[in-house]
Structure formats: C-alpha cells, structure tokens
C-alpha cells in the first residue's frame, strides 16, 4: 500500500495503451479479434471502469447504472437524428445528459447508504425503464426502440451540405464508425477513461473516497462533508455509463428500453466484482471474461454440443448433451450465475485477488523458512 509515484502511473499508462491498441493481435489466438467483440470489450470496459469509481472506491453499490447507459444511447441517437451523424457531438451530449440524470438520481439516492441506497438506485432505474418503454414513447419510440430515419433533420450535416443516400452510418468527420475504425474510436475513449480513473485513484480525492468506504463516521468527525464527495463520484461514474451508452449507439445507431433493465445494471456489478472491485484493472478483466464467454456460450446450440460430445459412446453423449444444454445458448446466464457464485464464495476479491494470492505463494514459501514478525501489505 505504498504511495503511487508519477513514474509508476506513466508506466501503467504506456502498458495499458499498448495492450488496448494491439488487442486485435493478441486476442487473435482465442478468436476474439473481430471488431464487433472488440468494441464490446472497450465499451463495457468504459462502463465498468466508471462503475468502479463509485463502487470500488466508496463502496456504494448502485443497482441502477444501466439507466445512465440508456440515457446515453437515447441522447446519442437523437443527436444523430437532429444534429449530425458525426459521433463527437453525440458522445459529448450523451455524457452531459447522463451527468444530469446521475446528479438527480444520486442526489436523492445518497440520502441513504448500504442496502437502502442500492434499492433506491434500482427503483430509479426501473422507473427510467418503464418511462422509456411506455410513457415517453414520443421520445423513446417505446417497444420498437429509437432508430434513424431517412427524413431525419440532421441540421448540422445539412448546414455543411453533407447528405446521405439511404440510411446513413455514424462517422468521425467522414470516417465510418464500423469495423476496426469503430473499435479504435472506442479504444481511444477507453484509454482516456482509464487514464482519468487512474488519476482519480491516485489523487487526494480518491484517497478520501476510500476513507469514506473504510469509515464514513470517522470522515465526518475528521472535518469532511461526505455527501458532495459521494455525489461527485456518483455523477462521474454515471457519465462513464453515459459514454458507454453513446458508444453502443455509435456502433449500432439504435436505442431500446431494454438497455436500462435491471439485468443490465446487474451485469456491470458482476463484471466489476468478478474482476476485483476497487482495483484499477480488475473491472476490465471482469468485462473481458464475461463478454468473451458470453460470446462463446450463448452461440452454442444442441447441434454443436452433440458434435462436441461425439467422441463419447452414443448413450453417454446424449446424457452429456442433456446436462450441458441448459447452460448454453439462452441458458448462458445460468453459467454466468454459477461462475459468479463460485467467485463470491471462494474469491471475494475477484480475479485480482486470485492473482495476488498466486503471486504471494513464493514469498509465503520463503517466509516459512525465515519467519517474519510483521506482514507488510502490498499495493492493491
């Protein structure tokens, strides 16, 4: 737990940037190098990195962050319809709008802590979902979802004399945001988002957030008004969610209410805890693991399973297929649930804790030889 140094931060950023930009290369061996999946990694990475600023640092567990994801998507699609197919205004407006929503929802939810806070955020998100699904149909286009249309205004594009034949696609000054350019746009934003999170983690502000998580009562008697700290963290993480929502719309200009459903809120909680809440990299590992296996497991069907178990005797193969079938395809969530249970029970600190434990094995062996009186703690 020694103090972070600037040199350290720089090294982390260089490594991180290199890893993200070269992801198509090193993910190729496991077959995860196609743009659609890479984009998902980056977008949900942003979502989780932001969520971790709230949950990882302050310990306040929001079950309603999908609301901000949805707000981001709707705002982005409206920006495409009314202003321009350029992604920059869409991204900026979405982040802003999500920030406004987060301020309002956070302001009220943060009157409570613990389980009551979680329930309040969940209730707000479900309200947003229902509003988007029915009441606000003129804005959200209800069940069908908000889509682009040929006769959209796109005033900025019109102003600059940009016109499209048929349904336009999103662009960055003419560069279409599909395939690899789409991924690299998301990747750059992920790098920026990660950098901001790194700064927050290693700033006095971040340390105060950790202190709130550790002992909020003490903070109050130490001279801190904790509410604005929590609200700031809540709004920042809401803005990250808004950015992720905007990017979902950038890669596929469509926004539906289901994006705000509680399962989507739960997913980011799972990803963060699975990887390791409160660590810098953990949430990204969680995203990687969940999105990768979702991709594999949810695509499987009985046909593939039968082929997989073809080496077994016929009757045994049938049993194997029957047993595994509920866990793939639509049943992928069952696998996810099991995985999550195992992690929470055996490795509450997530994958990061697992790696720390493995890293500590050589030292433990050494300690057994030469017992040391006081154990030093290492950096999280």
């Amino acid at each position, binding site marked *: *737990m*020694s*103090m*972070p*140094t*600037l040199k350290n*931060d720089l090294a982390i950023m260089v490594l991180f940037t290199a890893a993200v930009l070269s992801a198509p290369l090193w993910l190729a061996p496991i077959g995860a190098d196609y743009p659609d999946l890479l984009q998902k990694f980056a977008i949900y990475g942003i979502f989780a990195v932001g969520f971790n600023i709230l949950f990882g640092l302050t310990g306040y567990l929001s079950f309603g962050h999908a609301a901000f994801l949805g707000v981001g998507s709707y705002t982005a699609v409206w920006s495409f319809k009314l202003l321009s197919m350029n992604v920059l205004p869409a991204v900026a407006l979405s982040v802003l709008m999500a920030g406004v929503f987060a301020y309002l929802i956070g302001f009220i939810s943060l009157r409570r802590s613990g389980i009551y806070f979680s329930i309040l955020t969940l209730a707000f998100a479900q309200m947003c979902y229902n509003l988007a699904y029915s009441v606000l149909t003129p804005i959200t286009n209800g069940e069908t979802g908000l889509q682009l249309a040929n006769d959209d205004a796109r005033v900025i594009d019109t102003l600059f004399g940009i016109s499209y034949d048929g349904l336009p696609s999103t662009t960055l000054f003419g560069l279409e945001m599909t395939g690899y350019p789409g991924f690299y746009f998301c990747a750059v934003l992920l790098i920026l988002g990660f950098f901001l999170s790194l*700064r*927050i983690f*290693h*700033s*006095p*502000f*971040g*340390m*105060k957030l*950790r*202190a709130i*998580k*550790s*002992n909020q*009562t*003490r*903070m*109050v*008697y*130490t*001279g*801190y*008004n904790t509410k*604005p*700290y929590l609200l*700031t963290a809540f709004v920042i993480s809401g803005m990250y969610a808004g950015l992720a929502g905007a990017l979902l719309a950038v890669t596929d200009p469509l926004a539906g209410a289901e994006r705000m459903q509680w399962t989507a809120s739960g997913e980011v909680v799972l990803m963060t805890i699975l990887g390791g809440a409160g660590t810098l990299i953990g949430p990204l590992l969680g995203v990687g693991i969940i999105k990768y296996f979702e991709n594999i497991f949810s695509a499987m069907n009985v046909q593939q399973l039968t082929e997989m178990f073809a080496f077994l005797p016929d009757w045994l193969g049938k049993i194997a297929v029957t047993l595994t079938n509920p866990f793939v395809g639509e049943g992928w969530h069952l696998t996810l649930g099991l995985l999550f249970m195992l992690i929470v029970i055996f490795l509450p600190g997530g994958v990061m804790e697992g790696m720390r434990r493995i890293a500590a094995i050589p030292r433990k062996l050494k300690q057994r030889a030469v017992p040391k009186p*006081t*154990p*030093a*703690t290492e950096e999280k």
Partner: protein
Amino acid sequence: MGDIILDIDKVDKTFGGLHALADIDLKIEEGKIHAIIGPNGAGKSTLLNVCIGRLEPDRGTVRFNGEIITGKKPYEINHAGVVRVFQTPEIFPDLSLLQNVMVPAFAKRDGTFKFNFWKSLSSEKAIREEAEQVLNDLGLGEHLNHHAGSMSRGDKRRLELAMGLIQHPRLLLLDEPTAGMSRHDTNRTIELLTRIKERGMTKIIIEHDMHVVFSLADTISVLAQGRIIAQGTPDEIRGNPKVQEAYLGGAEL
C-alpha cells in the same frame, strides 16, 4: 483565570428514562488539561458526544471560543477546532497508517470538500512529510505503509491520536487514550501529551488510570450518574471525601 475556550452551559441529556447528563456546567480554560473521571456509565463519553455534535442535548448549550456549537454539523465543529479521539478506536482500517494521518491533514488544509482529483498524492510532499513526522513522534514511524486495520489496539489508539494531532486543534478531546496500551506505551503517551501541552493546545481527557490523570491534569471534574459531583485541582480531588466514596471506593490515593 485565562480565557474560557469551552463553556458547557446547563446541558441535559436523557436516553429513554436514563438521565445520562443532568444539568452539566463546565468551563474549560484555554491551554489547560482538564480531566474528567468517574465510574463506568457516568456519562463521560456522552458529554464529549454533545461537544462534537454527535448528540444534541435536550437542553443547554455548548460554546466554543464564544460561539454556540450545539446544533452545528460535526464537520463544522471539527473545522472550528474541536477534535475528538474516540474511546473505541475510529480509524480507517483499510488504509495505510500514513494515509490515515494524511486524510485529516487534507481536511485541515482543504476544508469540508475539495475536488482535487487531478493532483497526484505523490506530489503532496508537504502533507506527507508532516504525516510522517507526526507518526514518528508517536513511535509509529516504522509502520507507515502497514494496513491500519491489522495493528494492535494500542497502536490504533496512538494512530488515532496522530490523526487528531495533525489537525492542530485548539481543543483536543481524548476518550481514554491509554486504555489497552502497555505500561511502556502509556508512559510514552503521557510524555507526548505533556510535551504538546506546552504548545498551548487545550485538552479534555477522560481516563480511568489515576496515574495518568494525576500526572497530566491541571484540573479535574468528577462525574457520577450524569452529575458533576466535584471539581478542582488534583490535590483537592484527592482529598475530597465525596469523590472517594462515589468513585474511588474509599481507596487511598
């Protein structure tokens, strides 16, 4: 008599049927060490709770430095210059010792809220050095980067004392600061408290250890069942038969 820094005026507090504080009047002079003694459940901690805004009294007011602080928020009272060290250590168990002391130092410098998220902790040299200094003074200098939660109870108390001292409060409230400490650490703490007495910090100390009380205090109040039953210098208290009966069980001091 010097300036009165803390003026507790007719403070009353009941919990259900229990009269925890009954009509307490107490004036503390600036720069002095005032000890509050009394049997378990006498209301000593409750009195401190009223002073730092943890509890609202049913009646009465507390003035600090001439200003009424009853009804103010705890963090406002802290910034006015009143700092409390709790009876059961209130620290940040998940942070390192150094961070535990830096957090109050930032409060002192930056106020109740500051969004300094772009600055790196490593560039806050002045605060860090001050924190190291205070921890060294309290004999915790070797453990700077240890997890506070894994320290012994006595170390936690000293850590909390460090967290209080780094804020340079005008009034420091200590609730049994040496409970759970070894004789050696107790003596060290007494020595430290005497040393900072010379800097003019006013202190109220609750203590069961009479050795500590009589070696530190300028004045003593004896609290029993929510009432102050005696007040005076250590010598006066030592000779007071009422005190011996109520609290010291008639034992010779």
